[in-house]
Structures are given as structure tokens and as C-alpha cells.
């Protein structure tokens, strides 16, 4: 039983880490602020959820679980709120999304159709 928990928890942690790496790659490679925000906020919350779940399975049940839960709650509060506020502020200051504009996009070969899914493919 403990062994199984160890492997499941470890697996979740690795999965979360992979998600974080993918998100980071997205943040590095995407063409404009909005797509980067999209990549970061989704993978942050997702990765954090997976990893904290994994850690919860690894450790004993008790105060530690509560703390993990609190950390998770904080991240779930912060990350979306920050992403929202950031996108809002960026839009307010005159940044415009670049998806769909071939001139500006340069090397990015996403088509103008379905920019969202293009972003997701990359992530």
C-alpha cells in the first residue's frame, strides 16, 4: 500500500513538473503577452495541483496535508487573479494581441484560424 502510494505520488509530481516545463516553454516561445499569460496561468495551476496532490500522497496525513492544502488554495487564488489583472493592465496600456498577424509573428507559423488551439498545440 505504502509502496503504491509512493509510486502514484511520485508519478503525479513528475507529471506536474512536466506540465510546468511545458508551460515555461510556452512562456518563452509564444509571441505576445496574452498567449504567454495563457500558457503560464494554466500550467501553473495545473502543475501545482498535480504536484501538491503527489506530495500529499507521499507524506503522512496531518498538519502537513493541511499546509499543502493551504498552499494549493493560495496558488489557486493568486495565479488566476494575477493573470487576469495582468492581462487587464496590459490591454489597458495599449498592448494588442498579435495572434493572426503574419507580419509581426515572424517565425511563428500558427494560422490565423483558431489561435487558441494553436497555442495549446504548442503547449
Amino acid at each position, binding site marked *: 500500500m505504502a509502496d503504491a502510494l509512493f*509510486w502514484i505520488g511520485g508519478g503525479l509530481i513528475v507529471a506536474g*513538473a512536466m506540465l*510546468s516545463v511545458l508551460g*515555461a516553454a510556452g512562456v518563452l516561445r509564444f509571441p505576445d503577452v496574452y498567449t*504567454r499569460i495563457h500558457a503560464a496561468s494554466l500550467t501553473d495551476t495545473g502543475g*501545482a495541483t498535480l504536484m501538491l496532490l503527489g506530495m500529499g500522497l507521499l507524506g503522512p496525513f496531518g498538519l502537513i496535508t493541511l499546509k499543502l492544502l493551504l*498552499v494549493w488554495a*493560495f496558488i489557486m487564488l493568486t495565479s488566476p*487573479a494575477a493573470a487576469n489583472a495582468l492581462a487587464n493592465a496590459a490591454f*489597458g496600456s495599449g498592448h494588442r494581441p498579435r495572434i493572426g498577424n503574419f507580419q509581426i509573428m515572424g517565425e511563428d507559423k500558427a494560422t490565423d484560424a483558431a489561435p487558441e488551439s494553436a497555442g495549446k498545440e504548442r503547449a
Partner: protein
Amino acid sequence: MLIVAGVAGLIVAMSLMIVRAVLGPSHYDRILAANSFGTKTVLLIALMGYLFGRPAFLDIALVYALINFVTTIALMKFFRYRSLARPLAVAGGEDGADG
């Protein structure tokens, strides 16, 4: 071993975020990178507690999450209102722009 792999993955992700924070043409990119970096740091510290056999270090991860939250609000106020003193209003006006 799996924990080590998780730590390595987080380190890679953090390095990529640093590249974005350093290059990030606009301030928004930097803030995004800093914020996302903060989240990854929280996870890394929590994970390191397990790696080194001291999960009590979760306190520190908790503090990080907290600080990240407050700093984000401060940054948002910085950009939106150019002031740290003004309250965040409830009845702002029409909904929509941030829906």
C-alpha cells in the same frame, strides 16, 4: 528518484522563466515571469522538504505563496492606479472589461 526528477523539471522551468524575465520585452512579460516563477518556487521548496526529508519546511512554501499573492496585488495597483494607497473599489462602473 521521482522527487529528484520533479525537482529537475522545476529547475528547468524556472530557468526558462528567468530567460523570459530577463528578455521580456515589456514589463508585463517580466511580471508574468516573476509571478509564475514564484509559483514554481513554492512548489520547489515544498518538494525540497521531501527531498531532504524535512517536510516541515512547508511553512516556508506557504509564506512564499502568501507573499506572491500580496506582491501581485501591489503590482496590479502599481499599474492600474499608480498608487498603493487607494482602495480597490467595489462599485466601479459597468462590468465587462475584466469579466
